[in-house]
């Protein structure tokens, strides 16, 4: 058997793949956070809870209405997006004039409400969501055999990330968005409806979280607690990458997923803390983050 540093190559590959899967979720969630932060200057603490709701939404669609995975991939982001729009109109709207930290606190409160509610309804044990039949089973890549679904997750999240990047950086709508991020008053003076854009941006960011939730449902347990730990790691990812750029969020998300996977192979006890350690190191040498701009 081929080995690298005493680790079988197969184990290395499979952990790398797992790392990439985790990294895909980090990338999707930090992408959503970055998009929301750019426009609203708010760190959405409820992002993890909304991701959890996305997973539950898919589970409920299947168990209550017999609506399958692929339909859920379309319907859930729409539902979550709607929830996001409601949150923005009803609550966040009132906080734009005060310190941005209040936005963090408000969304923290929302996260508690969502998590507590789902825990009281479903307990902490979690529900299972079966992998759709087409994506079930292994696939042989030549150098390794992996479950089809994992490959699908990596592939699909990459597409969504690239599409989002393209939309923000290359389209007309994206240029409005960037303009409104840079200078909302001036953008409004040019006749662009900034409050509408803010609302849609938050809705879009939340929809991304919901999308990630549906993808996560078949891999992880659908449980009320699935979002809360993840969101803290994603915060660390965001600090490491810096909020400056969309591509930064994607690259650091995937990169840290891989690093975490590698740590699991070479030194397992560190695997749950390695992201935070990297964050500390980045803070020492590049406080603004790897891709961030110092304001």
């Amino acid at each position, binding site marked *: 058997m081929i080995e690298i540093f005493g680790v079988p190559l197969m184990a290395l590959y499979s952990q790398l793949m797992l790392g990439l899967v985790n990294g895909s979720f980090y990338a999707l969630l930090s992408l959503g956070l970055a998009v929301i932060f750019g426009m609203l200057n708010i*760190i959405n603490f409820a992002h993890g809870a909304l991701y959890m709701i996305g997973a539950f939404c898919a589970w409920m669609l299947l168990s209550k209405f017999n609506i399958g995975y692929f339909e859920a991939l379309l319907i859930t982001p729409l539902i979550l997006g709607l929830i996001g729009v409601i949150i923005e109109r009803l609550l966040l709207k009132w906080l734009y004039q005060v310190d941005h930290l209040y936005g*963090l606190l408000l969304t923290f409160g929302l996260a508690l409400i969502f998590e507590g509610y789902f825990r009281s309804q479903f307990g902490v044990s979690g529900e299972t969501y079966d992998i759709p039949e087409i994506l079930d089973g292994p696939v042989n890549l030549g150098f390794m055999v992996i479950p089809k679904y994992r490959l699908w997750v990596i592939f699909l999240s990459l597409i969504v990330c690239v599409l989002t990047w393209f939309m923000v950086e290359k389209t007309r709508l994206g240029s409005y968005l960037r303009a409104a991020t840079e200078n909302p008053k001036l953008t409004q003076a040019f006749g662009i409806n900034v409050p509408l854009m803010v609302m849609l941006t938050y809705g879009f960011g939340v929809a991304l979280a919901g999308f990630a939730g549906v993808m996560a449902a078949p891999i992880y347990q659908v449980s009320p607690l699935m979002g809360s730990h993840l969101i803290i790691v994603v915060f660390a990812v965001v600090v490491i990458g810096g909020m400056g750029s969309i591509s930064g969020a994607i690259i650091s998300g995937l990169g840290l997923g891989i690093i975490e996977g590698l740590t699991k192979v070479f030194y397992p006890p560190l695997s749950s*803390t390695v992201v935070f350690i990297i964050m500390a190191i980045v803070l020492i040498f590049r406080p603004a983050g790897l891709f961030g701009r110092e304001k």
Partner: protein
Amino acid sequence: MMRTVTYLILLAIGLLLPHFVYPVLLMKILCFAIFACAFNLLLGFSGLLSFGHAAFFGGAAYIAGYLIKNLELPTIIGILGGVLFTALLGWLVGLLAIRRQGIYFAMVTLALAQMIYFICLEAPITGGEDGMQGIPRGNLFGLSLQSDLTLYYVVLAGFIFAFLLIYRTIHSPFGQVLKAIRENEPRAISLGYDVSKYKLLAFVLSASISGFAGILKMLVFNFATLTDVHWHMSGDVVLMTIFGGIGTILGPVVGSTIIIGLEDQLADSAGDMVTVIMGAIFVVCVLIFRKGIVGESVALYQRMLGRKNLT
């Protein structure tokens, strides 16, 4: 004068209360009051929102528990050791966190606290998911702490000590500089203050007192638990402080009394819905009640005074 009378009345209530109310609940409230006051020193008087204070609160309890239970050292050594440890930890975390501001500061502290959480979960001495149990209260200055009433007065003394320490800090020249940094950081820098040093010192002080609070709580309940290191706890202390009134002296005490009292009342009937209720209080506070109970009362009082002056 009126202030002195108020504090004396509060002190008298504090001394008599355990004869009427279950002392363990009172001690829990006092521990959280210390914790919230320490947190308020940072948020209310230096303008730094730490989302990782549970690491100090819970972390200190583990260290003190280890010293007292595993090494069988006297309680006082456990307390001092735990506080010293949190001061060091606070210095390390603070050193990293003050490199960023505002929202990033909150995220960095949260992430570092999560790291401490994992260490507490996985380290061999902490008892993992079960926490560290059966930590003896021991003796303090020859006084056995076994009786709840005795321990209550010790905790009350600890609370008064911490409260006075924070009160003095806020009203010292150091505290004034902190307020200046909160109000306008660039101006404080241009006036020649080494802002980072002041922030760091405030952070270390706040962390140490939080650790002290956590150790007292550990002595009350005889165990150190993962709950106290969890990010929910960091959120709870933010809630107590905001609910009572950010930047007011008594606000955190009022806030922690109400929140802990409420949690205690709801624990049996509401179960998991407690989290939902706490979240709802959070949302309401942030939306329409940003000054908190004490802050709003003071504002109301001043408005009434103002009106009286006009007529």
